[in-house]
């Protein structure tokens, strides 16, 4: 099983530990990742210029299709953005023709065969919880984790087809494979506030604060993300008593026996190496 790995723009500089961790984990689980020089998923232009957004997204789809691969991304915003583009292209054949005409200048074409998936989907649906359990070599003991789903993966569910939009389970199931317990919390399906970060920081921070408090109130030690933007958002604030953000690659990776060099726990703004102390001795 091989996928074209779509890191998204934020990973190389802002969160390399996430990209590296995900690739190492997938490698251990016999899921191959191929690097292609992708462009931006289009998210950065989605609110301001539809044509630019569609062209940028579609170019990536065409690049993966050229290699006969589906796209796997660890970022939920890239995931949502590419999924929306696919839905638009499927819904509007005329738009697809026009996009393909633009792509033809780069000798590319998107026929519609390449699909896009998120790393959690691959772990849950393709690898499977049981296969992961076999690779877990050391379990967590007593650590409580709040699974933060991420809007752009969950919704709109008819486009993203990620999980049940009102009662999703896959993230919790994946967390519990590691021995950690996944807490139930009020705001687990809500937005982290990231999309407003650069435009209305007050709104963005208030939304985030509500989430962090909600996770804290549910007794979570960590709030777990599987999205570059969500993690960056939770890392952008002084935590105080709130639970620290942690990347899912770091939770699963530690339980699979991976080390700091693979997972980069110390690279998180809130040094997450304390998570290592929660492993069973």
């Amino acid at each position, binding site marked *: 099983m091989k996928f074209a790995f779509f890191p998204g723009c934020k990973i190389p500089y802002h969160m390399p530990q996430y990209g590296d961790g995900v690739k190492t984990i997938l490698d251990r689980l016999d899921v191959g990742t191929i690097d292609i020089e992708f462009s931006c998923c289009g998210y950065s232009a989605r609110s301001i210029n539809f*044509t630019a957004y569609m062209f940028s997204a579609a170019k990536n789809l065409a690049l993966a299709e050229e290699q006969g691969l589906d796209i796997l991304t660890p970022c939920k915003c890239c995931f949502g953005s590419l999924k929306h583009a696919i839905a638009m292209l499927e819904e509007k054949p005329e738009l697809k023709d026009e996009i393909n005409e633009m792509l033809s200048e780069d000798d590319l074409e998107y026929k519609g065969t390449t699909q896009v998936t998120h790393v959690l989907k691959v772990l849950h649906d393709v690898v499977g919880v049981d296969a992961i359990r076999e690779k877990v070599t050391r379990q967590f003991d007593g650590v409580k984790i709040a699974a933060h789903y991420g809007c752009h993966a*969950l*919704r709109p569910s008819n486009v993203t087809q990620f999980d049940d939009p009102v009662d999703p389970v896959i993230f919790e199931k994946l967390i519990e494979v590691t021995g950690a317990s996944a807490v139930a919390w009020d705001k687990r399906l809500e937005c982290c506030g990231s999309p407003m970060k650069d435009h209305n920081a007050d709104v963005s921070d208030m939304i985030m604060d509500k989430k962090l408090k909600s996770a804290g109130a549910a007794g979570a030690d960590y709030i777990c993300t599987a999205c570059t933007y969500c993690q960056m958002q939770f890392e952008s604030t002084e935590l105080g008593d709130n639970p620290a953000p942690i990347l899912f690659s770091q939770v699963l990776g530690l339980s699979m026996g991976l080390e700091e060099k693979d997972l980069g726990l110390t690279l998180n703004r809130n040094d997450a190496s304390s998570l290592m102390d929660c492993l069973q001795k």
Partner: protein
Amino acid sequence: MIFTVSLYLSLTIFALGLLYKFWSWVSLKIGPEAEDAPVGLRASAAMGAFITSLFSVNLVAIVKALVLDVLLQINILKKDFLSWLMHMLIFHGFMLLLLMHAMDELVSEKIFDGYYSTLNPYFFLRNVFGAMVIIGVGIAIFRRLKLKPLNQVSGKRDVIAIVILAVIMGSGFLLDSAKIVSQNVFDQMVVDYAGFEDKEESIPLMHYWAKDFGVVFEDFDEFDPEMIEEGKEMHVDFACADCHSKPDSLFISWPLAKVMKPVANSLNKADAPNILYYIHIFACFLGLAYLPCSKFFHIIATPITLIIKRCAAPRPNPVLKANRRALEIDGCTHCGNCSVHCSVRPIFEVLGNSNILPSEKLAATGDYAKNKEKADYDAGMFSEGSFICTECNRCTDVCTAGLNLQDIWLAVKKDLVRNNDQAPFEKLKEKAAGAVTPKDAVLKPGKPGLEKHLMLSSQADTFSRCFECQTCTNVCPAVGLYDNPGEKLGLMPHQIMHSLALGLKDDATGAAMVWDCLTCYMCQEMCPQGVKVTDVLYELKNMANQKIEEPV
């Protein structure tokens, strides 16, 4: 006289240009670190860093940078062989010509005993070095014409650079050949060096030189074997041979001289060698004077950026960061590699704003730093390019000049925010609220748009099923932030849907709700009637842009 005056004139302009550049490296303000650092502090920090580097382990890194990065250019080799070959040919060919030929009195004559420019191997080597540059220039032209992404970023400065090089090289070769065939040059040499009393005496030498050295004489075109033999002896006796190798080894100048042969007499009469000589030296002097302002300035700036790349501390003194940014604007070779690989390149291809591409944005960064305080300076396009950047670091990764572009982009965004030079999103928001006039338009697309496919907000179908249950508003996290959301957001999501159903698109688009939407899709997911609420809000933002693109 003319030579000396123009040499010193161009050297003076060169030196002034150099000073101006040094000044800009410690005065140009890019990023918050530069705001509070006076020029004196920045200059002393630069000197301090330079001196301490020379007396520390950094010396090893400096030598490494000079050998591996500057002389061998392994950074370019790793990225692209053809680009490396081009650059090596031009750089080394030109440097060797500069040292051996242009500065022969200072270099070659001091190092090589018996150096004479028309003696082999120097005579021949000049052709070799010149050919290297010509081939390099040929590759440069080919790449910039043939490779689409590179072609898109090739501008005036690249053309001027290539033209100057081509004129210097072309005139040099033509001069070589014109001198070979020129009777005037031969006559003058005979007067200067042979000391014949009568012009008749030189006839055997003329025969010999016509045959073996390619001189074209007006008076005769048939060779007399006896004369040639006699001339050959004179060639040695009168010491011509001490300074002149046969030009037949010049694989470019010699064939070129043969081509000139039919018109040699006319060229001679037109004083071609002299004219070509002046074209050649004036092109060189022009290049020298223009160098600090040209793309060739990277010959001086880029070795420094490459050294800094190897020596820079992980957390450098903020003042040095400010200096480095200013220096790096000159360190750019405009090779275009960053723009070829730029993540948001497809967005550039639609919008056509060259400020999106790193190589172009870097030059614009210098302009912005110089002009940002001026009231009438329009930073719109630069701001748009800067904020569309996703900070993916790829340009920094692929930069063969070792520039820390990422650091510059992050610093520039801070400057733009501080100066209130808005990002496109904010501009659209103000436009939607009626505050921006069309002349501030940004996001003018370079390609015909696909926005005609955005039809949700204008189709009755979208809203006909809405029964105003207000679920969208009740689940909206932005609405949920406020006790009195109407005051902060203008219209609630359900009111926006209702306004659109009534055709009040402008009112809807002006609502802060549209622009504070987190795009979490909660409303759309929860709508019992399947109204695409979030997609409609996205659409309104895009349509606000459409209105800016087509000012009334």
